[in-house]
Protein backbone atom coordinates (compact mmCIF):
# COMPACT_ATOMS: atom_id res chain seq x y z
CA UNK A 1 0.00 0.00 0.00
CA UNK A 2 2.75 2.37 0.91
CA UNK A 3 4.63 1.81 -2.31
CA UNK A 4 1.44 2.41 -4.29
CA UNK A 5 0.83 5.56 -2.29
CA UNK A 6 4.35 6.77 -2.90
CA UNK A 7 4.31 5.97 -6.61
CA UNK A 8 0.93 7.55 -7.20
CA UNK A 9 1.76 10.54 -5.08
CA UNK A 10 5.05 11.13 -6.82
CA UNK A 11 3.37 10.93 -10.22
CA UNK A 12 0.74 13.44 -9.19
CA UNK A 13 3.33 15.69 -7.64
CA UNK A 14 5.64 15.81 -10.61
CA UNK A 15 3.11 15.97 -13.42
CA UNK A 16 0.74 18.52 -11.94
CA UNK A 17 1.22 22.20 -12.01
CA UNK A 18 -0.15 24.10 -14.99
CA UNK A 19 -3.90 23.93 -14.62
CA UNK A 20 -6.15 26.95 -14.71
CA UNK A 21 -6.34 29.08 -11.59
CA UNK A 22 -9.53 29.65 -9.62
CA UNK A 23 -10.16 31.01 -6.18
CA UNK A 24 -8.18 28.80 -3.83
CA UNK A 25 -9.70 27.85 -0.51
CA UNK A 26 -7.79 28.05 2.71
CA UNK A 27 -6.57 25.28 4.97
CA UNK A 28 -7.09 25.70 8.66
CA UNK A 29 -8.24 29.32 8.52
CA UNK A 30 -11.23 30.81 10.34
CA UNK A 31 -11.21 34.57 10.11
CA UNK A 32 -7.89 35.89 11.38
CA UNK A 33 -6.99 32.51 12.85
CA UNK A 34 -4.64 29.97 11.34
CA UNK A 35 -5.03 26.56 12.93
CA UNK A 36 -1.96 24.37 12.53
CA UNK A 37 -2.22 20.64 12.01
CA UNK A 38 -1.90 19.19 15.48
CA UNK A 39 0.19 16.08 16.11
CA UNK A 40 -1.92 13.90 18.40
CA UNK A 41 -5.48 14.92 17.62
CA UNK A 42 -7.51 15.18 14.44
CA UNK A 43 -7.77 18.60 12.80
CA UNK A 44 -11.11 20.39 12.49
CA UNK A 45 -10.75 21.24 8.82
CA UNK A 46 -10.61 19.49 5.48
CA UNK A 47 -7.35 20.09 3.69
CA UNK A 48 -4.83 19.07 1.10
CA UNK A 49 -1.93 18.18 3.34
CA UNK A 50 0.58 15.43 3.96
CA UNK A 51 2.61 14.39 6.99
CA UNK A 52 5.88 12.99 5.71
CA UNK A 53 6.98 11.58 8.02
CA UNK A 54 5.79 11.37 11.58
CA UNK A 55 8.52 9.79 13.71
CA UNK A 56 7.60 8.54 17.15
CA UNK A 57 9.61 7.08 19.98
CA UNK A 58 6.72 5.77 22.06
CA UNK A 59 6.77 5.79 25.86
CA UNK A 60 8.21 2.55 27.19
CA UNK A 61 5.64 -0.09 28.03
CA UNK A 62 5.20 -1.20 31.69
CA UNK A 63 7.78 -3.98 31.26
CA UNK A 64 10.38 -1.63 29.83
CA UNK A 65 9.86 -2.59 26.22
CA UNK A 66 10.57 0.10 23.62
CA UNK A 67 8.82 0.86 20.37
CA UNK A 68 9.18 3.21 17.44
CA UNK A 69 6.76 4.22 14.69
CA UNK A 70 7.21 5.80 11.29
CA UNK A 71 3.94 7.06 9.81
CA UNK A 72 2.75 8.82 6.71
CA UNK A 73 -0.57 10.64 6.41
CA UNK A 74 -2.25 12.34 3.52
CA UNK A 75 -5.44 14.40 3.37
CA UNK A 76 -7.15 15.31 0.10
CA UNK A 77 -10.21 17.41 -0.58
CA UNK A 78 -12.73 15.98 -3.02
CA UNK A 79 -14.79 19.16 -2.81
CA UNK A 80 -14.18 22.36 -0.89
CA UNK A 81 -15.88 20.90 2.20
CA UNK A 82 -15.48 17.14 1.84
CA UNK A 83 -12.22 15.25 2.01
CA UNK A 84 -10.58 11.91 2.55
CA UNK A 85 -7.58 10.92 4.64
CA UNK A 86 -5.26 7.91 4.65
CA UNK A 87 -2.48 6.88 7.01
CA UNK A 88 -0.07 4.00 7.14
CA UNK A 89 2.68 3.16 9.59
CA UNK A 90 5.66 0.93 10.22
CA UNK A 91 6.28 -0.21 13.74
CA UNK A 92 9.32 -1.54 15.55
CA UNK A 93 9.01 -3.24 18.93
CA UNK A 94 11.87 -4.16 21.20
CA UNK A 95 10.42 -6.16 24.10
CA UNK A 96 12.60 -6.39 27.18
CA UNK A 97 14.62 -9.58 27.01
CA UNK A 98 13.11 -10.80 23.77
CA UNK A 99 13.75 -10.52 20.07
CA UNK A 100 12.63 -7.40 18.23
CA UNK A 101 9.54 -7.47 16.06
CA UNK A 102 8.67 -5.09 13.28
CA UNK A 103 6.28 -4.68 10.41
CA UNK A 104 3.60 -2.50 8.91
CA UNK A 105 0.73 -1.30 11.03
CA UNK A 106 -2.74 -1.24 9.57
CA UNK A 107 -4.23 1.14 7.07
CA UNK A 108 -6.38 3.92 8.47
CA UNK A 109 -8.70 5.98 6.31
CA UNK A 110 -11.15 8.76 7.01
CA UNK A 111 -13.96 10.72 5.42
CA UNK A 112 -14.56 14.29 6.60
CA UNK A 113 -17.23 16.90 6.07
CA UNK A 114 -16.73 20.54 7.04
CA UNK A 115 -19.86 21.41 8.97
CA UNK A 116 -19.20 25.12 9.38
CA UNK A 117 -16.58 27.85 9.54
CA UNK A 118 -17.53 30.97 11.48
CA UNK A 119 -14.93 33.56 10.51
CA UNK A 120 -16.16 36.23 12.93
CA UNK A 121 -15.70 33.95 15.93
CA UNK A 122 -12.75 31.88 14.64
CA UNK A 123 -14.86 28.77 15.06
CA UNK A 124 -15.08 25.67 12.91
CA UNK A 125 -16.58 22.20 13.12
CA UNK A 126 -16.17 18.99 11.21
CA UNK A 127 -17.83 15.56 11.14
CA UNK A 128 -15.71 12.56 10.30
CA UNK A 129 -15.62 8.80 10.17
CA UNK A 130 -12.29 7.06 10.66
CA UNK A 131 -11.78 3.42 9.80
CA UNK A 132 -8.84 1.31 10.95
CA UNK A 133 -8.87 -1.60 8.52
CA UNK A 134 -8.18 -5.09 9.81
CA UNK A 135 -5.58 -7.36 8.25
CA UNK A 136 -3.94 -4.51 6.33
CA UNK A 137 -0.60 -4.84 8.09
CA UNK A 138 1.57 -7.30 9.96
CA UNK A 139 -0.87 -8.55 12.60
CA UNK A 140 1.65 -10.75 14.40
CA UNK A 141 4.73 -8.54 14.04
CA UNK A 142 3.68 -4.96 13.31
CA UNK A 143 0.88 -4.45 15.76
CA UNK A 144 -1.78 -4.27 13.06
CA UNK A 145 -5.30 -5.23 14.07
CA UNK A 146 -7.00 -8.42 12.97
CA UNK A 147 -10.30 -6.57 12.85
CA UNK A 148 -11.72 -3.36 11.47
CA UNK A 149 -12.65 -0.49 13.81
CA UNK A 150 -15.07 2.27 12.86
CA UNK A 151 -14.86 5.62 14.68
CA UNK A 152 -17.27 8.50 14.03
CA UNK A 153 -15.88 11.81 15.31
CA UNK A 154 -16.76 15.45 15.77
CA UNK A 155 -13.82 17.84 15.53
CA UNK A 156 -13.82 21.51 16.40
CA UNK A 157 -11.55 24.53 16.60
CA UNK A 158 -12.10 27.81 18.41
CA UNK A 159 -9.83 30.81 18.48
CA UNK A 160 -10.08 33.42 21.22
CA UNK A 161 -9.59 36.44 18.98
CA UNK A 162 -13.11 37.66 19.71
CA UNK A 163 -12.30 38.30 23.39
CA UNK A 164 -12.56 41.92 24.54
CA UNK A 165 -9.52 44.12 23.98
CA UNK A 166 -8.99 44.23 27.75
CA UNK A 167 -8.00 40.56 27.46
CA UNK A 168 -5.73 41.10 24.48
CA UNK A 169 -2.98 38.81 25.76
CA UNK A 170 -5.45 35.91 25.78
CA UNK A 171 -6.50 36.42 22.16
CA UNK A 172 -3.70 34.25 20.74
CA UNK A 173 -5.13 31.22 22.57
CA UNK A 174 -7.06 28.64 20.61
CA UNK A 175 -8.49 25.23 21.38
CA UNK A 176 -8.99 22.40 18.96
CA UNK A 177 -10.40 19.05 19.87
CA UNK A 178 -12.36 16.02 18.94
CA UNK A 179 -14.74 13.59 20.53
CA UNK A 180 -15.69 10.23 19.11
CA UNK A 181 -16.54 6.63 19.71
CA UNK A 182 -14.72 3.58 18.36
CA UNK A 183 -16.58 0.41 17.46
CA UNK A 184 -14.42 -2.67 16.82
CA UNK A 185 -16.13 -5.09 14.45
CA UNK A 186 -14.84 -8.12 16.34
CA UNK A 187 -15.55 -8.94 19.98
CA UNK A 188 -12.15 -10.35 20.84
CA UNK A 189 -8.76 -11.02 19.33
CA UNK A 190 -6.63 -13.88 20.64
CA UNK A 191 -8.59 -13.88 23.86
CA UNK A 192 -8.39 -10.14 24.47
CA UNK A 193 -11.64 -8.20 24.41
CA UNK A 194 -11.97 -5.47 21.80
CA UNK A 195 -13.91 -2.86 23.70
CA UNK A 196 -15.93 0.03 22.40
CA UNK A 197 -14.24 3.21 23.54
CA UNK A 198 -15.05 6.86 24.02
CA UNK A 199 -12.21 8.99 22.68
CA UNK A 200 -11.50 12.64 23.33
CA UNK A 201 -8.60 14.88 22.51
CA UNK A 202 -7.83 18.54 22.97
CA UNK A 203 -5.05 20.88 21.96
CA UNK A 204 -4.52 24.18 23.75
CA UNK A 205 -2.46 26.48 21.55
CA UNK A 206 -0.90 29.90 21.99
CA UNK A 207 -0.09 31.33 18.57
CA UNK A 208 2.84 33.73 18.53
CA UNK A 209 1.95 34.43 14.89
CA UNK A 210 -1.45 35.62 16.02
CA UNK A 211 0.07 37.67 18.83
CA UNK A 212 2.62 39.36 16.59
CA UNK A 213 0.41 40.07 13.58
CA UNK A 214 -3.09 40.47 14.98
CA UNK A 215 -2.79 41.66 18.57
CA UNK A 216 0.48 43.35 19.44
CA UNK A 217 3.81 43.67 17.68
CA UNK A 218 6.15 42.57 20.45
CA UNK A 219 9.18 42.51 18.20
CA UNK A 220 9.34 38.83 17.40
CA UNK A 221 11.18 37.97 14.24
CA UNK A 222 11.65 34.78 12.27
CA UNK A 223 11.46 32.00 13.23
CA UNK A 224 9.84 32.94 16.53
CA UNK A 225 6.93 34.84 14.96
CA UNK A 226 5.67 31.56 13.48
CA UNK A 227 5.85 29.42 16.59
CA UNK A 228 2.81 27.90 18.23
CA UNK A 229 3.47 26.35 21.65
CA UNK A 230 0.77 23.87 22.58
CA UNK A 231 -0.29 21.10 24.89
CA UNK A 232 -2.30 18.18 23.61
CA UNK A 233 -4.28 15.86 25.86
CA UNK A 234 -5.83 12.63 24.63
CA UNK A 235 -8.00 10.08 26.41
CA UNK A 236 -9.54 6.72 25.64
CA UNK A 237 -12.20 5.21 27.89
CA UNK A 238 -13.73 1.75 27.33
CA UNK A 239 -17.43 1.45 28.03
CA UNK A 240 -18.45 -2.15 27.36
CA UNK A 241 -17.24 -5.75 27.22
CA UNK A 242 -15.96 -6.05 30.73
CA UNK A 243 -15.88 -2.42 31.73
CA UNK A 244 -17.19 -1.98 35.26
CA UNK A 245 -18.61 1.52 35.69
CA UNK A 246 -18.47 1.20 39.50
CA UNK A 247 -14.71 1.07 39.73
CA UNK A 248 -13.58 1.99 36.23
CA UNK A 249 -11.73 -1.23 35.58
CA UNK A 250 -12.34 -4.10 33.26
CA UNK A 251 -12.07 -7.54 34.74
CA UNK A 252 -8.35 -7.50 34.39
CA UNK A 253 -8.44 -7.37 30.61
CA UNK A 254 -8.26 -3.66 30.12
CA UNK A 255 -8.08 -0.32 31.87
CA UNK A 256 -10.02 2.73 32.76
CA UNK A 257 -9.24 5.97 31.02
CA UNK A 258 -5.80 6.13 29.51
CA UNK A 259 -4.12 8.69 27.34
CA UNK A 260 -1.32 11.13 26.77
CA UNK A 261 -0.34 14.61 27.81
CA UNK A 262 1.86 16.04 25.07
CA UNK A 263 3.49 19.45 25.46
CA UNK A 264 5.36 20.73 22.45
CA UNK A 265 5.75 23.34 19.79
CA UNK A 266 4.85 23.75 16.12
CA UNK A 267 6.62 26.02 13.68
CA UNK A 268 4.33 26.79 10.75
CA UNK A 269 5.88 28.26 7.61
CA UNK A 270 4.50 29.08 4.19
CA UNK A 271 4.60 25.60 2.73
CA UNK A 272 5.22 23.28 5.62
CA UNK A 273 5.26 22.98 9.35
CA UNK A 274 7.35 20.98 11.75
CA UNK A 275 6.21 19.85 15.16
CA UNK A 276 7.90 18.35 18.18
CA UNK A 277 6.16 17.01 21.25
CA UNK A 278 6.94 15.02 24.36
CA UNK A 279 4.47 12.24 25.11
CA UNK A 280 3.66 11.60 28.78
CA UNK A 281 1.31 8.65 29.32
CA UNK A 282 -1.25 8.48 32.09
CA UNK A 283 -3.73 5.89 33.30
CA UNK A 284 -3.52 2.38 34.70
CA UNK A 285 -1.34 -0.03 32.78
CA UNK A 286 0.64 2.64 30.98
CA UNK A 287 4.39 2.83 30.84
CA UNK A 288 6.57 5.19 32.82
CA UNK A 289 8.81 6.67 30.17
CA UNK A 290 8.36 9.81 28.14
CA UNK A 291 7.98 9.45 24.39
CA UNK A 292 8.93 11.89 21.67
CA UNK A 293 7.17 12.70 18.42
CA UNK A 294 8.45 14.72 15.49
CA UNK A 295 6.36 15.50 12.45
CA UNK A 296 7.16 17.12 9.12
CA UNK A 297 3.96 18.36 7.52
CA UNK A 298 3.43 19.80 4.04
CA UNK A 299 0.64 22.12 2.88
CA UNK A 300 -0.15 20.68 -0.54
CA UNK A 301 -2.54 23.52 -1.40
CA UNK A 302 0.31 25.99 -0.98
CA UNK A 303 2.94 23.81 -2.62
CA UNK A 304 0.79 22.90 -5.61
CA UNK A 305 -1.90 25.58 -5.84
CA UNK A 306 -2.70 24.89 -9.48
CA UNK A 307 -2.92 21.11 -9.36
CA UNK A 308 -3.19 18.60 -6.52
CA UNK A 309 -3.63 21.38 -3.99
CA UNK A 310 -7.14 21.97 -5.27
CA UNK A 311 -10.35 20.02 -4.67
CA UNK A 312 -11.03 17.36 -7.28
CA UNK A 313 -14.64 18.44 -7.76
CA UNK A 314 -16.77 21.54 -7.26
CA UNK A 315 -15.75 25.18 -7.15
CA UNK A 316 -12.08 25.85 -7.76
CA UNK A 317 -11.36 22.24 -8.68
CA UNK A 318 -8.06 21.08 -10.09
CA UNK A 319 -9.51 20.70 -13.57
CA UNK A 320 -10.22 24.39 -13.73
CA UNK A 321 -13.98 23.85 -13.96
Amino acid sequence: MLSRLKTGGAALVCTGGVLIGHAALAHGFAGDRFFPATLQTDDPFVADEASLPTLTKNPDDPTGGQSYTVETDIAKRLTSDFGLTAAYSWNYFQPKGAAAQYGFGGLSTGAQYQLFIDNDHEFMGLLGVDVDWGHTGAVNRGGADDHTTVSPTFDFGKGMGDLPDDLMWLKPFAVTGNIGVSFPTRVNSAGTLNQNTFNAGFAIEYSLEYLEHHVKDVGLSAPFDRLIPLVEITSTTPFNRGFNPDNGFTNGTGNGTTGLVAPGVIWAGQYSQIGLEAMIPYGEGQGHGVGVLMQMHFFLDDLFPDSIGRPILGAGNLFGA
Partner: protein
Amino acid sequence: MIRQVLAFAAGIALCASLNAAQAHAFLDTADPTVGGTVKAAPQVVTLTFTEGLEPRFSSIMVEDSTGQRVDLGDAHTTGDDPTHFAVGLKPLPPGSYKVLWRATSVDTHKTNGSYSFTVAP
Protein backbone atom coordinates in the same frame (compact mmCIF):
# COMPACT_ATOMS: atom_id res chain seq x y z
CA MET B 1 11.29 2.44 5.38
CA ILE B 2 12.57 5.62 7.02
CA ARG B 3 14.86 6.31 4.07
CA GLN B 4 11.97 5.78 1.64
CA VAL B 5 9.69 8.17 3.51
CA LEU B 6 12.40 10.80 3.80
CA ALA B 7 13.19 10.43 0.10
CA PHE B 8 9.55 10.98 -0.76
CA ALA B 9 9.39 14.05 1.48
CA ALA B 10 12.49 15.40 -0.22
CA GLY B 11 10.85 14.71 -3.58
CA ILE B 12 7.86 16.82 -2.64
CA ALA B 13 10.11 19.67 -1.61
CA LEU B 14 12.08 19.41 -4.85
CA CYS B 15 9.01 19.33 -7.08
CA ALA B 16 7.57 22.25 -5.14
CA SER B 17 10.67 24.28 -5.85
CA LEU B 18 10.41 23.42 -9.53
CA ASN B 19 6.78 24.55 -9.54
CA ALA B 20 7.76 27.92 -8.03
CA ALA B 21 4.87 27.61 -5.60
CA GLN B 22 3.09 30.53 -3.97
CA ALA B 23 1.23 30.30 -0.73
CA HIS B 24 -1.20 31.95 1.64
CA ALA B 25 -0.10 35.52 2.32
CA PHE B 26 0.59 36.13 6.00
CA LEU B 27 1.10 39.61 7.37
CA ASP B 28 4.81 40.14 7.95
CA THR B 29 5.12 43.74 9.11
CA ALA B 30 2.80 46.71 9.47
CA ASP B 31 3.20 50.46 9.72
CA PRO B 32 1.73 51.67 12.08
CA THR B 33 2.71 48.59 14.02
CA VAL B 34 0.23 46.03 15.26
CA GLY B 35 -1.17 47.22 18.57
CA GLY B 36 1.15 50.22 18.53
CA THR B 37 0.71 53.88 19.47
CA VAL B 38 1.92 56.70 17.22
CA LYS B 39 2.45 60.29 18.26
CA ALA B 40 1.73 61.83 14.86
CA ALA B 41 -1.27 60.81 12.77
CA PRO B 42 -0.07 58.57 9.92
CA GLN B 43 -1.03 59.49 6.37
CA VAL B 44 -0.86 55.94 5.10
CA VAL B 45 -1.08 52.37 6.38
CA THR B 46 1.49 50.08 4.81
CA LEU B 47 1.36 46.32 5.18
CA THR B 48 4.05 43.90 4.07
CA PHE B 49 3.05 40.32 3.35
CA THR B 50 4.95 37.10 3.00
CA GLU B 51 3.69 36.65 -0.57
CA GLY B 52 2.94 38.92 -3.48
CA LEU B 53 -0.66 40.14 -3.65
CA GLU B 54 -3.17 40.50 -6.44
CA PRO B 55 -4.32 44.08 -5.71
CA ARG B 56 -7.64 43.78 -7.59
CA PHE B 57 -8.75 41.13 -5.10
CA SER B 58 -7.11 42.53 -1.99
CA SER B 59 -8.16 45.37 0.26
CA ILE B 60 -7.33 47.44 3.32
CA MET B 61 -9.97 49.29 5.30
CA VAL B 62 -9.30 51.49 8.31
CA GLU B 63 -12.09 52.31 10.75
CA ASP B 64 -12.28 54.62 13.74
CA SER B 65 -13.74 53.59 17.08
CA THR B 66 -17.27 54.26 15.81
CA GLY B 67 -16.82 52.06 12.77
CA GLN B 68 -16.56 54.93 10.30
CA ARG B 69 -14.09 54.42 7.49
CA VAL B 70 -11.15 56.78 7.58
CA ASP B 71 -9.14 55.41 4.68
CA LEU B 72 -9.15 56.91 1.18
CA GLY B 73 -10.16 53.67 -0.52
CA ASP B 74 -7.07 53.66 -2.70
CA ALA B 75 -5.44 50.42 -1.56
CA HIS B 76 -2.56 49.62 -3.86
CA THR B 77 0.73 47.79 -4.07
CA THR B 78 3.71 50.08 -3.71
CA GLY B 79 6.48 50.35 -6.27
CA ASP B 80 7.40 47.13 -8.00
CA ASP B 81 7.03 45.02 -4.90
CA PRO B 82 3.69 43.15 -4.82
CA THR B 83 4.27 42.20 -1.19
CA HIS B 84 3.86 45.83 -0.07
CA PHE B 85 0.25 46.97 0.11
CA ALA B 86 -0.84 50.41 1.30
CA VAL B 87 -3.86 52.65 1.69
CA GLY B 88 -4.04 56.41 2.23
CA LEU B 89 -5.73 57.89 5.27
CA LYS B 90 -7.86 60.93 5.97
CA PRO B 91 -6.51 63.24 8.68
CA LEU B 92 -6.79 61.23 11.88
CA PRO B 93 -7.62 62.82 15.22
CA PRO B 94 -6.28 61.08 18.35
CA GLY B 95 -8.05 57.82 19.04
CA SER B 96 -8.10 54.12 18.36
CA TYR B 97 -8.28 52.72 14.84
CA LYS B 98 -8.77 49.30 13.37
CA VAL B 99 -7.10 48.04 10.19
CA LEU B 100 -8.97 45.27 8.35
CA TRP B 101 -7.11 43.62 5.50
CA ARG B 102 -7.96 40.99 2.96
CA ALA B 103 -5.09 39.52 0.98
CA THR B 104 -5.37 37.46 -2.17
CA SER B 105 -1.97 36.16 -3.12
CA VAL B 106 -1.03 35.95 -6.78
CA ASP B 107 -2.04 32.28 -6.85
CA THR B 108 -5.51 33.27 -5.48
CA HIS B 109 -5.07 31.95 -1.93
CA LYS B 110 -7.04 34.17 0.42
CA THR B 111 -6.30 35.30 3.96
CA ASN B 112 -7.64 38.13 6.06
CA GLY B 113 -6.90 39.77 9.33
CA SER B 114 -7.19 42.84 11.45
CA TYR B 115 -5.32 44.79 14.07
CA SER B 116 -5.60 48.03 16.00
CA PHE B 117 -3.37 51.04 16.50
CA THR B 118 -3.73 54.25 18.46
CA VAL B 119 -2.98 57.87 17.63
CA ALA B 120 -1.85 59.50 20.86
CA PRO B 121 -3.44 62.80 21.99
